[in-house]
């Protein structure tokens, strides 16, 4: 028996998919969780006692994650929050960002905490896939590749493959990773808070460049409209349910590669369903740090992330500060 809300959600999902004939894989997917009414909530959870280096204490990190999730879902119990996000039987993908290797990638301790909570919420280990563009990126960031079907899998797109047919929207035409299209029912996006030498910042939306075969084609014109257009590809819109941004150590200059001299300990996590609101909020955090350090704004150096506004115009979410509820906990 499905609730009215679930039925409506499925209909919205079908519309977002742009097709009525949904495959079984597609029909399992929950609706995209766009916040059409009311403000887009962005939780900023910080812990000043958290170590910012590679050895960020995992127990502290798990507590911070719980606090962020409880605040985002406005519940007293962290597990209740996870149960609202995923359902037992679903295959959940964790899209990490590991291109920069250790130092500026989604830290394994955070992903471990997410995996633990997912399992406590009823997701089997074998139904969790940690994935990124290349296995060697994952290894560089400290993950161990695991392909066995009886455990949490950790794999790059080169192992799982890409679709044979192009998906397209606007300026984007790409082969999508099968991790996204076939393996996972739901995706949790785990980007890193950092500067990007061409597109300004790389956060939630840009992280999905790791789901296409040709991200190198999408950097002209400071990524506008490419970043927004890639995010419009239906499986991305339909399956990415939440973004949990690793902002334990953030970077305000010199990204996306790791440049320790331009990193700072933010000691936080950003959680949002609306990737535009999250990216706008993260961008402002980076701008404030740049200003504090006497650096010019991204606009002044020709790297304003205009694609965030384009994404808002596409209807992915909002970049209007008046419609973003930034909740600091």
């Amino acid at each position, binding site marked *: 028996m499905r609730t009215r809300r679930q039925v409506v959600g499925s209909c919205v999902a079908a519309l977002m998919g742009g097709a009525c004939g949904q495959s079984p894989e597609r029909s399992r997917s929950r609706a995209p969780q766009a916040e059409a009414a009311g403000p887009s909530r962005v939780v900023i959870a910080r812990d000043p006692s958290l170590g910012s280096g*590679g050895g960020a204490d995992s127990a502290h990190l798990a507590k911070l994650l719980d606090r962020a999730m409880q605040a985002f879902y406005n519940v007293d119990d962290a597990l209740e929050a996870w149960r609202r996000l995923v359902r037992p039987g679903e295959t959940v993908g964790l899209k990490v960002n590991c291109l920069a290797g250790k130092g500026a990638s989604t830290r394994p301790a955070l992903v471990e905490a997410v995996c633990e909570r997912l399992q406590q919420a009823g997701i089997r280990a074998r139904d969790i896939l940690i994935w990124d563009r290349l296995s060697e990126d994952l290894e560089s960031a400290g993950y161990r590749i695991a392909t066995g079907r009886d455990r949490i899998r950790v794999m790059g797109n080169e192992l799982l493959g890409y679709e044979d047919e192009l998906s397209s929207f606007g300026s984007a035409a790409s082969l999508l990773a099968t991790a996204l299209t076939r393996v996972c029912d739901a995706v949790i996006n785990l980007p890193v808070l950092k500067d990007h*030498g*061409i*597109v300004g910042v790389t956060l939630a939306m840009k992280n999905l460049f790791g789901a296409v075969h040709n*991200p190198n084609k999408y950097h002209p014109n400071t990524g506008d409209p490419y970043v927004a257009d890639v995010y419009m590809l239906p499986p991305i819109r339909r399956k990415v349910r939440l973004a949990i941004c690793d902002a334990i150590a953030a970077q305000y200059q010199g990204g*996306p*590669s790791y440049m*320790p*001299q331009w990193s700072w300990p933010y000691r936080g996590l950003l959680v949002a369903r609306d990737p535009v609101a999250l990216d706008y909020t993260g961008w402002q955090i980076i701008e404030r740090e740049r200003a504090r350090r006497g*650096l010019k704004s991204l606009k002044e150096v020709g790297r304003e992330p205009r694609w965030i506004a384009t994404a808002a115009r596409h209807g992915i979410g909002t970049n209007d500060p008046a419609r973003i509820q930034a909740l600091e906990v």
Partner: protein
Amino acid sequence: MKRLGIVSLLALIAVACVRREPDPFPTGDEAAGWVKGRGRTFPASELWRYVDGDAERYLQAGIERTVTAEYRYRGQFEAVADVHIMRSPEAARRIFASEPAAGSRPVEAGEAGRSYGPSLTFHRGRYFVRLVAYEESAEAAEALRALAAAIDRRIQVARR
């Protein structure tokens, strides 16, 4: 026939020169305390696989390829050494100069070098080198300077 022979000989010499590209990464006692791990090579056309968006500025400056190696220092911390082999010394100098010097100190490595503490850059000839340690300490900064000096020596030998 004689001309063909000369052309073939020149071609062989050219190929031999290209293949003689040295390994810039020190091993063993060349850089005390450092142990070399995995190494990788990225031609210009594949550089995006390594540094994604960061590749653009190297391509614009004129890069041939990047070789990179992982290192570990006395079992205490890890580092990565990137050697970007540019098309010309001017391209290497341009990349070096394009990065903000704020917060850095000059170091004796290459034709010009900077230490930012946990990272270090220098250029020599058409080589632009970046070292990054996953550790912020005086010891890490000192160890990076030693590694930079060893890489610099290898580059100088290669250029002779």
